[in-house]
């Protein structure tokens, strides 16, 4: 049997990326934001929609959105993927794209996302009723799930509200260096965070991601072609996926996220470790996420994430820059933040 988990290290590269309508995009549909972001990302590489033969997409509610997308752009794909895994979908798309590009099944992969959830005004459709093991207890999903994880992490490791506030403040400081960030120009202090309204304890308003509009897109090709299309291709060295549960009560250890295992696989594929990393972009839907992911990806030991993010160590000027666009907490979060982590990482 072949060795499992073989990733085509460095065989593919990002050659284009763009965002559009981050913040409020009045009058634009989610599809408009996907399409415009895609056109701009293709422009970066000097490519046209007709050059694309694989699309990977996300949209807040149209579950055949990839068909509308290719119809809008005149793309004739040999592979389409609208795999939904939550906001992380686009990272999984990149994993699949890398394998399919490397095998020669596809030549030019376009990953795109758009959502006008802020200006559209909360018309999100609940697609399925909650299970009988969750529904009667009325958790705010996903907020209360992360709140429960935070309560457990605080209990086991003494993580404090101040440490979680450090994550929010660091994100805000990065946002204040990014003119495109939705919260650009609005200062935030630890004291502000600690005084913010509790939503689902221990999470307060400042522990939670924004609700914005926004679109994003990236273009991936094989490495040999990348050099012709971009001055500085961003090579994809490793990727991985894991799922541990659906409903929060089924999480095997509520202080350990699924990031642990694919993190190991991605680092192994890349031949790198946490100490080789200069900048981290991760999915900060809530402040506890940043702490959990830094632990689970090996940047610090389990339980030490709170101390790790303190004293501005992940903020501008800190030891390890994290979410340098301002993150889902202070830059952009149109429902799914995942693609923005990749755009920021390759910018």
């Amino acid at each position, binding site marked *: 049997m072949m060795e499992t988990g073989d990733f085509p290290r460095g065989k593919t590269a990002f050659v284009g990326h763009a965002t559009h*309508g981050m913040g409020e*995009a009045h009058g634009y549909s989610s599809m*408009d934001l996907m399409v415009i972001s895609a*056109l701009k990302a293709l422009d970066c590489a000097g490519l046209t929609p*007709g050059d694309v033969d694989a699309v990977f997409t996300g949209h807040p509610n149209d579950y055949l959105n990839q068909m509308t997308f290719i119809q809008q752009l005149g793309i004739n794909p040999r592979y389409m993927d609208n795999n939904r895994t939550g906001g992380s979908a686009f990272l999984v798309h990149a994993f699949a794209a890398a394998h399919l590009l490397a095998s020669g099944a596809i030549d030019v992969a376009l990953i795109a996302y758009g959502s006008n959830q802020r200006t559209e005004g909360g018309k999100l459709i609940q697609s399925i009723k909650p299970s009988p093991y969750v529904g009667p207890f009325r958790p705010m999903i996903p907020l209360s799930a992360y709140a429960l994880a935070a309560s457990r992490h605080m209990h086991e490791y003494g993580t404090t509200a101040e440490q979680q506030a450090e994550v929010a403040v660091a994100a805000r400081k990065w946002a204040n260096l990014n003119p495109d960030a939705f919260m650009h120009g609005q200062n935030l202090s630890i004291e502000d965070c600690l005084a913010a309204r509790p939503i689902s304890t221990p999470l307060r308003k400042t522990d939670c991601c924004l609700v914005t509009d926004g679109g994003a897109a990236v273009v991936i090709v094989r490495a040999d072609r990348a050099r012709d299309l971009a001055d500085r291709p961003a090579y994809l060295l490793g990727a991985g996926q894991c799922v541990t549960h659906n409903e929060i009560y089924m999480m095997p250890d509520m202080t350990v996220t699924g990031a642990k295992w694919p993190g190991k696989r991605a680092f192994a594929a890349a031949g790198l470790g946490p100490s080789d990393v200069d900048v981290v972009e991760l999915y900060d839907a809530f402040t506890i996420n940043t702490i959990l992911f830094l632990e689970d990806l090996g940047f610090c030991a389990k339980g030490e994430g709170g101390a790790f993010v303190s004293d501005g160590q992940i903020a501008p000027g800190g030891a390890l820059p994290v979410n340098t666009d301002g993150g889902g907490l202070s830059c952009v979060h149109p429902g799914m933040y995942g693609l923005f982590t990749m755009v920021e990482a390759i910018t």
Partner: protein
Amino acid sequence: MSYPKPDVEYAEHLRAGRFMIQRSRSSGRFVFHPRVAEPVTGARDLEWVEVSGKGTVYAVTVVGQRPPAEPYNVAIVELDEGVRMMTRVDGIASAEVRIGMPVTAVIRAEGEDVPHVVFTPAEGA
């Protein structure tokens, strides 16, 4: 945010009594439905052009309804400009709509409905 809002613009033209579709300045190719860029090329040079409103039925179906509601037709019409659109043929019994029949556009933009274009049999046809 310098990108157009083509769906909004198409509807505004219809409300103003103009049946306009987009055409690429560089390729001369007509495009329907409205978009922010020409398909395939991605050219950002689409301009609105008023069309003749003349076309031909390309495909048709009659949808049955529970009586006393009448059956209605859904048609695909190919405009003389070369693009096709979904529509309905009015002014004739649905069962009489035929592929190949020449038709003429009529704008429906009254009321709260989405502005849209239907067709009637061309005069003299």
